[in-house]
């Protein structure tokens, strides 16, 4: 190819890049972007909040609501929704494989990130988070709407399942026993990690054992966000994880207590930093209750039935 042709091709590509409003591989959007593109038919705003009742009080204009207790999990088996259930949900939300799905929610996007993980797991191409979520939107005095936008349902089909984004118990045991070369990241509080407590106060989902998976390092989820709820810069994030020996050279498996908050750190590792990261959604409530698995319990707390 002649150099001039190459240049022309590059120019037209870059022109194309500036013309499209949503370039691929941009996992974060800011509030300004969300305001401008909310009405774009190719964009679908989806709220996934810890408290699903906040949506009705007011949400981003044009957004749809997803209830994580029932819409994203199988209510009987302890599992994420099946491929068929995901297809039904995405169809109901009027999403096509080309749609840019922008998720946001309350509590630092905890469950919005969990939703993003599931959308990625089922192979949706363009999944993003609204940086800062509801807190930042409100702090900037942007408007809410109480109207539920009606959408035309689609016929969504999942073409590939990214099962490499999910870790299961045997994978985690293999890492703990040194049979598999990967890192483990525990994003719970230092007291839970040390085994001083089994779960935070007021929490019902417990484990029989305290402590953490052997070889895991502890970096609570909160350190990756700034005061205003937005994520820290990629450079800062890289530095934070590097201090714990996670630098992207090895696969990293991230877990928490019930496997939802860890999706938040998974999003940072996998989507923002591009590391090979998996989310272990069974997390401590599965691992700490499993029979005969190795456990590191520095504090030595044992459940005594009280």
């Amino acid at each position: 190819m002649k150099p001039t042709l190459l240049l022309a091709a590059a120019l037209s590509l870059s022109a194309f890049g500036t013309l499209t409003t949503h370039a691929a591989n941009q996992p974060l959007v800011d509030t300004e972007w969300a305001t401008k593109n909310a009405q774009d038919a190719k964009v679908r705003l989806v709220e996934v909040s810890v408290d699903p009742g906040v949506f009705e009080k007011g949400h981003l204009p044009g957004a749809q609501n997803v209830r994580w207790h029932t819409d994203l999990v199988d209510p009987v088996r302890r599992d994420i929704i099946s491929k068929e259930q995901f297809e039904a949900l995405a169809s109901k939300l009027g999403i096509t494989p080309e749609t840019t799905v922008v998720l946001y929610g309350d509590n630092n996007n905890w469950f919005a990130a969990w939703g993003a993980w599931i959308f990625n797991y089922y192979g949706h191409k363009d999944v993003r988070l609204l940086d800062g979520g509801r807190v930042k939107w409100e702090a900037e005095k942007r408007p809410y709407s109480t109207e539920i936008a009606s959408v035309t349902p689609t016929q969504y089909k999942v073409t590939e399942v990214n099962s490499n984004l999910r870790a299961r118990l045997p994978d985690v045991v293999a890492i703990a026993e040194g049979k598999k070369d990967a890192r483990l990241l525990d994003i719970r509080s230092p007291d839970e990690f040390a085994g001083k407590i089994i779960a935070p106060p007021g929490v019902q989902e417990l484990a029989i054992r305290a402590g953490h998976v052997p070889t895991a390092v502890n970096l609570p989820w909160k350190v990756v966000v700034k005061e205003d709820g937005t994520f820290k810069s990629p450079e800062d994030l890289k530095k934070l994880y590097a201090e714990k020996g996670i630098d992207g050279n090895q696969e990293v498996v991230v877990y928490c207590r019930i496997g939802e908050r860890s999706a938040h750190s998974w999003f940072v590792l996998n989507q923002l930093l591009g590391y090979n990261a998996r989310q272990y959604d069974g997390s401590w409530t599965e691992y700490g209750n499993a029979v005969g698995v190795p456990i590191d319990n520095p504090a030595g707390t044992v459940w005594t039935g009280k």
Partner: protein
Amino acid sequence: MTRKLQVVAALALVAAAVATGYWLHGDARFGRDASLTWWVGIALGVVLQRARFCFFCNLREALEEREPRPLLGILTALAAGTVGAVIIFGAWIPDATAGYLPQRGHISPAAWPMLAGGLLFGVGMAFSGSCISAHFYRLAEGSPLSPVALLSALGGFALGDLFWNPLYLAAYRMAKPVWLPEIAGFGAALLGQLALLGVLAWWLWRRRVPVTPEPQPASVHEALWVRRWPWWAGGLAVGALLSVALLRTQPLGVTAELTARGHQLAQQWGWAPERLEGIDGLRGCILPASSAPLSLNALLILGLVAGSLVASFLGGHFEWEKPPLRRLASAALGGLLLGVGSRMALGCTIGTLLGGITALSLSGWLFAIGLVGGVWAGLRLRRVWW
């Protein structure tokens, strides 16, 4: 208190209420939801006191004196609140038969404790002189019975910890909320409920006895602050407040905070169970989850009392009378039943009855049926006692 002193106190209270609302709005621990809840509480206090929106007195007047107008006020509130709720729910859920409930609204399971709780609550109203919300506005009129009844009710809420878990497992766990729009759609449910309220109103109106009309109020002040508001005005105002609260804060209710405090007492007295089953999955005035120093429900109640105080002072209604001991004992016994009944039925006349019926939940009707039966029985029982 002299008239002049009461007016000064009312104005000082208004200034304090404005300052509190402003401060709540700006404080990071509270915010706009808390501020709005505070104002809803104030407005509710003014309306309840001015319209004398007392479930027991209104029922008693209709049953014993054949004076239906005050009870028509309650039916008006139910009708107006239903219209408001349907408008709001319709915005949240385009199709009511979709298979899920709106995220807010006191749509509780239709189970027998609704009926039984209503019955106990009705008897409790007859013995204590009114329901929980009316006791709150009577505090502001200087009633010495109301503090006794409310403290005793708190004991009743604490007693609830003794029976909550078995009651929940036996009656509520497997019971489903029956939400009328889910069966028939919004339109038919709304029309059906309005028709039923209309028939009740017509029946009450037919059996009224003639009363001599009161002379016109001499001044605006007298009409607003001294005379009891007309039944329809109070009813419409309560209906509007139900809708505002449903849309913007939490569905109205005055017993969630009392339940929480009762639970605290039960813990102190050592009979609280390790865990109250099911409270995360049930709708109603149960335990307020709050990280703020005061729950939204506590703010609503404080606002209600403050609002009633303003209304009471402006009209010169604050009066202190010494009741006979027998009445105090009756108020204490009645209060206990109010607490136990509320705990069984997940709320009282505000949350379960007004909130439930206007949200088109069968649970509200069950409570109302039990309540009327309880008042009927209580009126007879108390003749023996008093």
